[in-house]
């Protein structure tokens, strides 16, 4: 019995055993939690980057699709034009100033042309997008770092800018778009991404390519044909920044997406 009792008493852990195991446990769990914390942070920043990327990609897809489908029904579908211009498309890409009066503007870049829209950060597509509403104007405009999208029925008496400027038409579409950010921010971005913002200047979202004889050139280089009705393709560049910096390197996180919209419908 004595021996049995003695054995029973010895079944617990010694203090040393306990302390050793606890400290091993602490060290291991510390390492695990440390790793977990880092990966959680990484996961958070990466998923933010991914969701920015995803948002930009969906935005890009929609711009390309609106561009491809714009221009229906063209003027060539009418032997006698309807009384109201709201029933047909004058040009797949609408413009201002001079839309309502028969005058067209010229497309430039960085303020080089006479068009307000289409411009580097603003475009209005015109067409029946087959949603049952008839001919509409779809506008994309960058305000600050948010790209807005607005859809409005084409009006025969109001211009496309005024129509889409009505309160509640333009809605936020893609956020954290850095294409036209401050020069200080551009310099900071170029430190991490030297290939972005060539020349340190703002990066146009929309670049318009016009027909010129048998070839196509950027509209601002097309002499005499740099009007919105001659736009054939639209090069789209979206630079989107993740709201948070990289968890490990503390660098800015950006993605640049490139797309091209192609006008399928004739322009007049």
């Amino acid at each position, binding site marked *: 019995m004595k021996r*049995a009792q003695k054995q029973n008493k010895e079944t617990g852990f010694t203090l040393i055993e306990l302390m050793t195991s606890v400290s091993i446990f602490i060290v291991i769990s510390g390492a695990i939690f440390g790793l977990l914390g880092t990966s959680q942070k990484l*996961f958070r920043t990466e998923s933010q980057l991914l969701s920015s990327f*995803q948002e930009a990609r969906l935005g890009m897809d929609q711009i390309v699709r609106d561009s*491809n489908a714009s*221009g229906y029904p063209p003027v060539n*579908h009418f*032997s006698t*034009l309807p009384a109201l211009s709201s029933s047909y498309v004058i040009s797949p890409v609408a413009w201002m100033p001079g839309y309502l009066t028969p005058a067209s503007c010229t497309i430039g870049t960085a303020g080089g042309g006479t068009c307000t829209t289409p411009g580097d950060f603003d475009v209005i597509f015109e067409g029946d997008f087959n949603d049952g509403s008839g001919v509409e104007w779809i506008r994309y405009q960058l305000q600050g770092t948010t790209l807005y999208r607005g859809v409005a029925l084409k009006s025969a008496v109001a211009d496309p800018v005024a129509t889409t400027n009505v309160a509640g038409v333009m809605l936020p579409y893609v956020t954290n778009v850095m294409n036209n950010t401050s020069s200080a921010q551009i310099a900071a971005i170029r430190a991490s991404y030297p290939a972005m913002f060539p020349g340190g200047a703002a990066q146009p979202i929309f670049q318009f390519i016009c027909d010129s004889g048998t070839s196509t050139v950027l509209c601002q280089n097309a002499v005499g044909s740099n009007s919105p009705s001659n736009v054939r393709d639209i090069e789209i560049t979206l630079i989107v920044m993740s709201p948070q910096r990289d968890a490990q390197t503390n660098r800015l996180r950006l993605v640049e997406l490139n797309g091209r919209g192609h006008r399928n*419908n*004739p322009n007049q």
Partner: protein
Amino acid sequence: MKSNPIGRRKESESGVALLIAIFVLMLISVVAISLMVASGGESALAGNYRSSASVYLAATAGLEEARGRMLSGNSDYFNNTVAGFIPASGSLPVGQVRYILNPGPGEALGSLLTTYPDTEYATEFGAAPLSAAVQTIASVSTVTSGGTTYYGPLFKWVRINAATEKSLKTDVNSDSILDLVTPLYYDSGHVPKPSLVVTATPPASANQALEITALAILPNGSQKTVQYVVAPLTINLNFPSALTLSGKNIAFSGANSNVYYADGTDGDGNPPAVPGCTPNPLNSLPAIGVTEPLGGTGNKDAVTAGIPRPDHYSGAGLPTPSVSDAITLNSSLQTPASLNTLVQTISQYATIITPTPSGGLLGTATDSDLPPMSATNPATVVVDGNLNLSSFVGYGLLVVTGNLAYDGNSGWKGVILVVGDGTTTFTGAGGGNQEFDGAIFVASIKDTSGNLLSQLGNVGFDISGGGGNGVYYNSCWIKRAQPTLTYTVLSFRELH
């Protein structure tokens, strides 16, 4: 007894390991599942984006296959596979429907329209097409080679049919009525701008507009229907007279025959009919048109003086002989350079270019060098050299870059362009009762060394040896003779 306490302890601890194991497993599972859910959401978003882009591209690939295969110059031309699939006149009556079928892996050609029915047609025309009016053809995008089948773009079918106001839901003539039965034509001569027109009797400058609709469905169920409205684009040649001679000095010697006439009134003579086209007799042009690059009336006088039977030359209400030097030439017929470009363009779409050039010398082609042709199957022939016809009747567009001579019972229905070197001659020594219906144009664009001239050179026209029954202006044959260069896209839209 000694081992009892130990045995008890072992028993009481035996479930703990299991509990701990289950707990740890649950923990790991929760982490794993949450990670899977997060990445699963990402890949679903990326997948949606990818399939929306690929289904769009697959559908447009279908449209392009149809647009390409309607061209007779294409080796995959519809009518090369199924005779008469697209009527030779290039037009389809309203109600006639053509499908290109493109079954995917495990799908049968015959049941494709049952598996993927065309509900869009009934939406456009109010009812499904009559089965007797439907013809189908297999797509060429799926290729079998060495026992392996390679599938092309995943469109299911492409429909080709006549377009109407109703099918396009477009009031083309703004009369507040959507016409269901009258086909639409694309009139390149419409004023103020070329446009679709609603007409059962199209003018010569119009070609029928066709609707091409394609459906694409991906294995994941994404689907897209897109539609083109297209119209054939031709070189759009028109002529100011039945016989046009353009050059510095014109030598003219007319036919003595009593049955020979030159007539500028549209459709006179005995031309074979062109399906879907009726000549307009009110459209009357001079029998012979000449240019006067040297000023004065030298060429007109030379032609008039060379006509033995003036009363046989009529048209445009002019006193006989109907010869005019107040003509306006199509821009592509005006200068040696523009005519040379025209010949190059036509050569690209020619049924045949003959004879094969040998040593840089102009060869001479004869009847046997020409392809078979008929009123229902006109050809585009480019003779790079001289052409001697002997009792040959041709149909279509004939370009001769040398001299043209004919004898026997010869004639042509369509357009003849003789644009040669030095002094280009058109010589006839024919007999019989054949005639030339359409238009003839003769000019010199090169010198005898083959260099392009800066101005059109001299022209000789001599049919004093006999000219058959004559030359008759015919707008339908002029139109029919010109090959379709391409099908222009008049509009594009996404339907669903």
